[in-house]
């Protein structure tokens, strides 16, 4: 095993379309209007961090649709999980879902998006990131740049100290998600579910819905206009959790995601079950979604099953 230095710098020759530093977010600040944030696909991020020996809460890069071009200064271990954006190292295709050793001067690039939407790049060690409210997660606000390290632009670099050197690991190919459309998404009936007409609910549940181009980490607008929807069902604003599906006045559904506002006043037809949030995180504009109702107990069971599998594999 070669000697690894204590510090690595990664340089963004190109940042890509949306490359952000994310961790597990800012849970606990929502009473002040701060979005939860954090990685969109929690399983993929967890696997990527595990492959390089980092804690599940460690920051890593979330790379959406188009990859960055990165140069490494120093030797380290990395891993890539989630969407397949055809990663290459020094021009050669490289496997995902396994520990990769990279050397000083290595260049990491991405090519075509093959499946999914968001790839996660972990680097074994302690990321030196300026935190805001105890989190490294990128937070975008028009007039205060509170997480300057987490939104890298061309020419920026990040520093990782305490470089780790773990035994090379891999995550079983048969368990790597394929991210195919249409996506089957389970929902729990939302707080206002009973206020929707039978016709509106049938329209929602019996059809596939297309994700529109109005799509970001705050939420996905669907192309659907719900039939027989009465916009006068006004709701006094209350708290929002990621996964909430609200219907705007025009009848258009929006699925709220990690960076969603903390309060809202549109009627909520349903909430995506937690076990399905990760595959939703890998959906992209043009993908189809089919919703089905799930019982609370079945949602818990799906979550327990996921957790048991992960605990077994990520030892």
């Amino acid at each position, binding site marked *: 095993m070669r000697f690894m230095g204590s510090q690595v710098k990664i340089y963004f020759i190109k940042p890509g379309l949306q490359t952000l530093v994310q961790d597990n977010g800012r*849970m*606990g*600040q*929502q*009473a*002040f*209007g*701060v979005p939860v944030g954090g990685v969109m696909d929690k399983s993929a991020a967890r696997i990527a961090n595990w492959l390089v020996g980092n804690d599940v809460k460690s920051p890593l890069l979330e790379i959406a649709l188009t990859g960055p071009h990165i140069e490494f200064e120093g030797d380290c271990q990395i891993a890539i999980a989630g969407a397949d954006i055809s990663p290459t190292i020094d021009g050669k295709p490289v496997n995902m879902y396994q520990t990769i050793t990279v050397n000083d001067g290595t260049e990491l690039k991405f090519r075509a998006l093959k499946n999914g939407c968001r790839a996660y790049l972990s680097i074994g060690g302690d990321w030196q990131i300026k935190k*805001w*409210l105890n989190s490294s997660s990128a937070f975008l*606000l*028009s*007039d*205060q740049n*509170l997480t300057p390290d987490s939104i890298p632009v061309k020419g920026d670099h990040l520093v990782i100290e305490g470089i780790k050197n773990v035994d090379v690991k891999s995550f079983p190919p048969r368990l790597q998600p394929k991210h195919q459309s249409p996506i089957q998404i389970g929902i*729990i*009936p*939302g*707080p206002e579910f009973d206020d929707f007409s039978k016709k509106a609910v049938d329209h929602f549940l019996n059809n596939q819905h297309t994700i529109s181009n109005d799509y970001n980490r705050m939420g996905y607008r669907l192309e659907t206009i719900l039939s027989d929807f009465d916009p006068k069902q006004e709701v*006094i*604003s*209350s*708290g*929002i*959790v990621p*996964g*909430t599906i609200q219907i705007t006045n025009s009848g258009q559904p929006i699925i709220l995601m990690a960076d969603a*506002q*903390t*309060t*809202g006043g549109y009627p*909520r037809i349903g*909430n*995506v*079950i*937690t076990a399905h949030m990760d595959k939703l995180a890998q959906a992209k504009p043009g993908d189809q979604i089919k919703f089905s109702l799930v019982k*609370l107990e079945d*949602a*818990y069971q799906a*979550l*327990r099953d996921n*957790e048991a599998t992960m605990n077994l594999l990520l030892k």
Partner: protein
Amino acid sequence: MDFHPYGDSAVLVNFEQKIDPQINSKVVALSKALVTSEIKGLINSIPAYCSITVTYNPLEISYSKLCEEIEKLSATSLGDQNAALRVLSIPVCYEDGYSLDWEDVEKQTGLVSTEIIEIHTKTIFQVYMLGFLPGFVYMGSLPQSIAVARKTKPRLKVPSRSVGLAGLQTGIYPSEAPGGWQIIGRTPLDIFDGHKAEPFLFQAGDSVRFKSISPESYMGIEQEIKSSNFNFDEIYG
């Protein structure tokens, strides 16, 4: 008080669905009690006008068990809802340039700006909730006489620290943002400063009174804040 599943990791606790200071005080009291409680698996509590969103880890506690715990806690917390309420005095310059919408607001209310300012500074408001943006404060309720509809065409950029009206509510923009509230003034205080250890000036349940100040006084306070000479204790009490 009733409970709704809100996905598999949150409970929506609904009080009587009405924007009302007494109901909101109960919300704030129960939400505070939840945050400091030691209910295993409880993650977070988000108070709103007349509801609380309680998030939990379903691997540690079930929906029905959590509802029971909330019910139990409400029996004790709702008794001390007036405990240690703060009253904040917020300076606002209502002059043109700081306000943007006097014309529209005067037209809608049939009052002149001086009358509206008088009502806005005499009323003691309650912070019902924070939301929309980090630190955005929703306060109420406005007397019906100065209630106004939102702008038909929202602005793409409302300046940071703008004080606005919308329906029976008044609010302050914590940072520059798009928005449709009718802007009647601006405060020199940073109601949200992300670089501070405690970034938020307000919390749900606070009482607020606005104080009309001149442009000179606005600029004076702004200078004091910039040079770290402003005494923030001035605004409490």
